[in-house]
Every structure is written in structure tokens, then in C-alpha cells.
């Protein structure tokens, strides 16, 4: 739903993009990500005054450590629920379309073409690509989580239980674990709080935010403009009826906007502190 300050047109057709579980997973992912960033960044920038303030705000480094590990567990659970969902769709429901084609998150030649076309469109050298259900930048965000879960999650668990892991790993792997945990965290937080925020919410077409991840639905008209290939497919296969959904109620919209605004503000605060620390 393109919520740029105007009310949804009355009588518009809405289609479902995210089901309830996906939306809940995003809320938990978002909360745990913000929590991890909030309790972790003070360590990465411990020489800054604000780091001390944030650290004391959550009750000192011990409390921050407990919170950080708790948020990590939440994030891992989100990841496992999502993985088990994918497994179910693939092996039980035999939903092979998630492996290839427009309904799949797997990067495909078309994504490369879309990306080049998109850049050409930025500079006025071509039309806007006919995006389908998942764009190349959305796929990048999606797989970045997998990469991040592996790198930050893996190194985090090594650092969490150093005595156990030191039975198997050489000592300097802990130095490596701390380094990649911090650097990858820097990559993830700055990426999410700038690039993902811009792509998903803050770019002028979406500003101040896209509530689709909170309400789960978007107007068919928006699909037609932003994801024409998906629109064509839906109309041709008459899939619109299948995923038609009621318009979001004002309460749902308000809730989505509130949660989204808080998350974006916390993220922007953290990324401002980070960039300030990196530049000064």
C-alpha cells in the first residue's frame, strides 16, 4: 500500500502480499534486529560517549549482554520458523515454484536484467523494468539475512561459548569471530538502516513508509504500476480473485504506521550515531 499521506481510494481492490505469519516474523525479526543493534553497537563504538549512555540505558554491560543474547535467540527462532516453512512448502506441499520463476526468491538471470534496466531508468536511458513479485533488491535483502545469520549468528555463538568451542577451534579463531561479528554487524545495521529503509520506506514514492509489511495487503492498482509483470500474470491467470483481500482498516493502518515509525526512528538514530562515529 502506497501510503504517502493520502487515504486509500474508496472501493479499490486490494491483494494479499504477505500472510499473517510472514508479517509476524518480520515484526520479530525487526524487533530482535533493533534490540541486537541497540545492545551491540555500544561495544563496537565503546570509545564514544553515546556508547556509554546507551549501555547504561539498558542497565550496564551485563544486562546488555543478557538482552543481546535474548534477542539473538529470538532472531534464530524467526530464522528457523522461516526455514521450516520453506521446507514444508517444498517437501510437503511440493510447491516447486518457490525454487524458480516469478514466485521464487532464488536469483535468476531476469534479476540481473532488471537491475541493469533499473539503473538505465534512473539515468533516463530506458523504461522502468517490468518488475514481478520479487525485485532484485528485495532478493538481496532476503539473502543478506541468510548470509548475516551465518556470519553474525555463527560467530556470535562461538563468542557466547568460548570454552566449549575452544576444544575444537584454534585460539585465533576467536579473534576472527569477534572481528567478523563486529564488521558484519556494522554492514548489516548500516545497510538496513539506510539502504533497506530507503528502498522500502523512505524513497519519495513510498515516503514516509510502505505499510504492506504490517498490513499484508496492497492495492491492485499499485501492483499494476510497480510490479506490472506480476499484475499481468495475476490478471491473465485470474489470480486476483484468489488473493483478493479486504482493504486495511484504519486501526490496522495506524498500528502499522506506529510500529514502522518507531522502528525507523530507532534505526535512524543508531545509524546516525554510527556514521558520526565512523566519520569523526
Amino acid at each position, binding site marked *: 500500500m*502506497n501510503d*504517502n499521506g*493520502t487515504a486509500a*481510494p474508496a472501493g479499490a481492490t486490494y491483494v494479499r502480499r504477505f500472510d499473517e505469519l510472514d508479517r509476524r516474523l518480520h515484526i520479530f525479526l525487526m524487533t530482535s534486529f533493533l534490540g541486537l543493534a541497540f545492545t551491540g553497537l*555500544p*561495544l*563496537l563504538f*565503546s*570509545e564514544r560517549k553515546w*556508547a*556509554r549512555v546507551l*549501555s547504561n540505558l539498558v542497565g*550496564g*554491560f*551485563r544486562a546488555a549482554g543478557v538482552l543481546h543474547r535474548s534477542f539473538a535467540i529470538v532472531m534464530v527462532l524467526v530464522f528457523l520458523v522461516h526455514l521450516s516453512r520453506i521446507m514444508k512448502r517444498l517437501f510437503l506441499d511440493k510447491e516447486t515454484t518457490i525454487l524458480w520463476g516469478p514466485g521464487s526468491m532464488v536469483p535468476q538471470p531476469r534479476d540481473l536484467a532488471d537491475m541493469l534496466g*533499473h*539503473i538505465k*531508468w*534512473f*539515468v*533516463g536511458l530506458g523504461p*522502468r523494468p517490468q518488475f514481478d513479485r520479487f525485485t532484485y*533488491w528485495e532478493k538481496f535483502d532476503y539473502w543478506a539475512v541468510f548470509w548475516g545469520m551465518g556470519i553474525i549468528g555463527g560467530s556470535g555463538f562461538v*563468542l557466547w561459548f*568460548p*570454552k566449549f568451542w*575452544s*576444544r575444537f*577451534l*584454534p*585460539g*585465533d*579463531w*576467536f*579473534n*576472527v569471530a*569477534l*572481528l*567478523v561479528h563486529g*564488521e*558484519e554487524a*556494522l*554492514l548489516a545495521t*548500516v*545497510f538496513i538502516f*539506510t*539502504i533497506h529503509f*530507503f*528502498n522500502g520506506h523512505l*524513497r*519519495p*514514492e513510498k*515516503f514516509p513508509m510502505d505499510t504492506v509489511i504490517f498490513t499484508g495487503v496492497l492495492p491492485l*492498482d499499485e501492483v499494476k*504500476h510497480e510490479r506490472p509483470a506480476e499484475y499481468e500474470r495475476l490478471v491473465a491467470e485470474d489470480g486476483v480473485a484468489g488473493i483478493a483481500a479486504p482493504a486495511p482498516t484504519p486501526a490496522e493502518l495506524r498500528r502499522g504506521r506506529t510500529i514502522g515509525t518507531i522502528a525507523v526512528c530507532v534505526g535512524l538514530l543508531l545509524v546516525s550515531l554510527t556514521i558520526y562515529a565512523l566519520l569523526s
Partner: protein
Amino acid sequence: MRVGAVLAALLFAASTLRAAAPAPKPPSNDDCLTCHEDPAAKRADGSSLFVDKKVFEASVHGVAGASCVDCHTDLAKTTDFPHPEKLAKPDCSACHAQQVEDYGKSWHAAARAKDPLSKAAWCSDCHGKHDIRPSSDPTSRTNHFNLPATCMRCHGDPKIFPRAGGADGSEPISFHDSIHGKALEKSGLKVAPNCATCHGYHEIRSPRRDPKSTVARAHVPSTCGSCHSKILEEYSESIHGEQLAKGNESVPVCSDCHSAHAISGTPEVRRLTILAQCGSCHDSSLKSYRDTYHGQVSELGFAAVATCADCHTAHDIHPAGDARSSVGPAKRLATCQKCHAGAGPKFAKYDPHANPHDRGRSGVLWFTALFMKYLLIGVFAFFGVHTALWFPRSVKARREAQRRGGDGDAE
């Protein structure tokens, strides 16, 4: 009142005339007190010339039966009273030769010699005048428990002693709140040191200007070690102690970490302040430490993680190659296990001063750091440009969408 004093002096003079003899007898204490016993008697400038008989008789000199003229020697042969107001300063050396000789070597004496108006202490500034009591007397100014207050009359007053106002733990006034000061003044421990224990009694030399001072850098360890003898033993054998013995005064001595006067018994604070102290010389070690979890947490102000002395020890510091070193191959695991109970040998291979830019120190860390650097640069360069290009196009797209909306959502 003044008339009374003059009358008394006249009577006294008359009495001496009556007893006129070839060799004039020195005036007795009672003779002196004839005038000086009057609490109201004053000199021409209005200052009191009162001497309390009881106080003098209770003093160490009074008890010993000393006579006024034993100290005020220039009055011993005086017959013409009242005597001139200006008298010579009593010379204590007639009896206390060694003490005055020691005092002659002190910074106090040097300061007075340089500037006659100097307020540097003279015998009576610390010991008193007619009321001098032996140090064994609990009311004595120089009693073990009272000495800090006596020294602080000048050294706690910024008008007399400019450094007294400082707040870096080097100023004498902070002694009161130090572990030594509390032990002495609150707990009343007679083994607790006072000023003189470290600085000496009469021969107090300047720690900055006089290398013979008991608290000059080179002598600090032996001075502290006169009580803390086991620590001195460890320190003397450590790399710092060895270097000091060779004349290298840039190594830390006791007071660099513990401060001169504010010496504290709160290890929590010291465990954090030691970082800057060690780091003032070992700056690259401090820098690499800051990149580790220990260094990050301690920088946030929490002392619950290892700081310098936790691994390297406080006094028994040896180079890592030395078999005695707490971080050398022989003792390293035991050092880690002080906090990380149950850690294994591989655990101790962790590098608490890892440097990702030093390929020789750890190749895998160096390579990982390089990879992460280019990963970050790559991702942000691509998406930075991507976003920068998208933004103006998105502004345009928004305007187009608004126009569409204005046209009744038709396209």
C-alpha cells in the same frame, strides 16, 4: 594595663639593682614571667607577649626544667629591662644539633635560605614554641597521628602551597581520604604511615628537585617497600624494577599507578585507571586491547573484565619470553583460568592484543579483516550509487503518480 606592666618592670629593675653583683645572674623564669604572665601585655605593634606559665611548665622543655634564657640566649646577660622587642630567633641546634643539621639539608631550609620571607617551615612551625610536647604525647603536633594535620596547615592551603588545590591525586590534601590516611586518622592504626614515614622528618627533600629525596622517582619503590616489602621484592625483580635499577626513570614506579597521596584501596577504580597509566607508554598494546571484548567493555566503564594487571600482574611483570611471566607459555593458561575457569589449552591461544593489520601475528585474522573491508566497501559503494541515482528518479516518479491521482487515477 600597660601601666601595670611598666610598673612591674620598674620594680624588677629596682630589685636587680639592689642585688647588684659583679657577674649579673641570668634572669629566672619567674623574672621573665613578671611581665610575660600578663595575658593583656602587648608589644608596640599590639601583638601579645603573653606566655602561659602552665602551658610552658607542661611542655617538654618545662618538664625538663629548661629556663627561658636557654633558648632566648641573647637575654642571658641582659640586665636592662624591659629588653628590646626584637630578639634573635632561638637556635635549637645548641641542644638538637643532629636534627638541625638534618633540617639544613631539607627543601624547607633551602627555600628559607633563598627567600627570607619564605613561609617554608622552621622548627617552631611544626613543633610549636613554648608549648612543645614530645612526639610520644598524644596532644603533640608531631605525634604520629597528628602530623598530617600539622603538615596540612601549610600543604593543605593553596595560598601557602599552590599545588594544594590540584585534584590529580598528587596533592597532599588527598592523603586524608587515601587508604593510608583512613588507616591512620579513622582506624587509628599506629602502623599506618603519616607524612614523615615517606618524606622523612627533618631532612625533607624536594621529590622533584632533589634526587636524594626519599620520594624522588628512583627512591619511591624502596620507600614504599620499607613497609610493602614483598611487593618491593616482586617489583625489583620485574622488568620495570630492573630498568629502574639501571637508571631508567621512565619506567613506572609505585606512585605512577597508585598516585602519591590519594592511594586508594578500591581496586575497581584502579583496574580502569591503570589502562591509561600502562597505555601512556604501551600505547600500541592499549590500542590492540581496545579492539577486543575486554577492551570494549572496560572502555564503557565496567571493570568486570580483564584489564592490564589481571593478566600481566601488577608488580611481577616480566617480558612474555621470560619463564616467570604470567602471560608466557608456561603460565598463560593459568592466567586465563583466573577468570575463565575450566578453559583449555586452545582457549589460551586467543590473542588478547590481536592486530588485524599484522599479517605475521595472525594470517587468518589479517585475511578476514581484508575480506570484510572490501565486502563493506563493495556493498556500500554499489548501493550508495544505486540509491543516489534512484533518489532523483523517485522524486520524479512520485510527481507522476500524484498527477495520475489528480487525473482520477487513470493511466
